[in-house]
């Protein structure tokens, strides 16, 4: 089996060491907290980045260009 090429090992390790942001988890049966705060401005900024990312993914995978994902 082919492993990562020389030089790619460090890149991969760097990637794996990066901090992954955590979701806001809730146990089933517990009511969702009202305190879940919105940050509309920041969410819209991120949406711009995600639009490009989603479009690129769909172009690569050959999924429909329509916004609605074909699941």
């Amino acid at each position, binding site marked *: 089996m082919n492993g990562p090429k020389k030089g790619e090992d460090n890149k991969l390790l760097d*990637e794996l060491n*990066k*901090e*992954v*942001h*955590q*979701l*806001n*988890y*809730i*146990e*089933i*049966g517990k*009511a*969702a*907290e*009202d305190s*879940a*705060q*919105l*940050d*509309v401005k*920041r*969410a*819209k900024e*991120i*949406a711009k*980045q*995600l*639009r490009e*990312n*989603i479009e*690129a*993914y*769909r172009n690569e995978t050959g999924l429909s260009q*329509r*916004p*609605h*994902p074909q*699941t």
Partner: protein
Amino acid sequence: MKLVYPNDLIPRLSNSHLLLDANVLFHAVQNEDFFDLLVTMHTKGCAFLTIQSVVFEFARGAKSIEQFNWYIDFINLLGIQVHKDVESLITKDRAFAVLLQTHTSQSKKGISYTDFLLLMLLHKFAHLSDKINLMTANYTDVPLKIFDRKDIIALEYDGGVQSQALYQISQSKIDSLVKRAK
């Protein structure tokens, strides 16, 4: 981009829970009016929930940790909370799982695992409250023999129209199916 939805939708969804499918998140990213509608719902007391499987589908395009974090941040910034351990519902709610499988097996592809879990969760929550809806654009995986389609939101894009719909479980439909099976 234009949105069409019932005038009383937002007041009706106040102090309720809304379970979100992956396509809701995609629409929120790509349709600013729809995003604003979700924000309005939230500020009027509608709590957003989803499951890990939806997060996986939504974040599939991420090619690095940095990109993955964008998706996570978007979910968090919209105030969406994620349910843990949904899979155990299948064993704990076996009768409903079988009923659901029976009435979704007719579709060509069969129901996706994500949609199956969302519908199981909807059933679980229905026992706790009647103010829980599932929002999804995927109408083929929600059997109307078991669920009611309560509302439709139409989203206009260049070249077309798409929709999101809200669903609730119908105990009377379930009772009717169980009666017929006996």
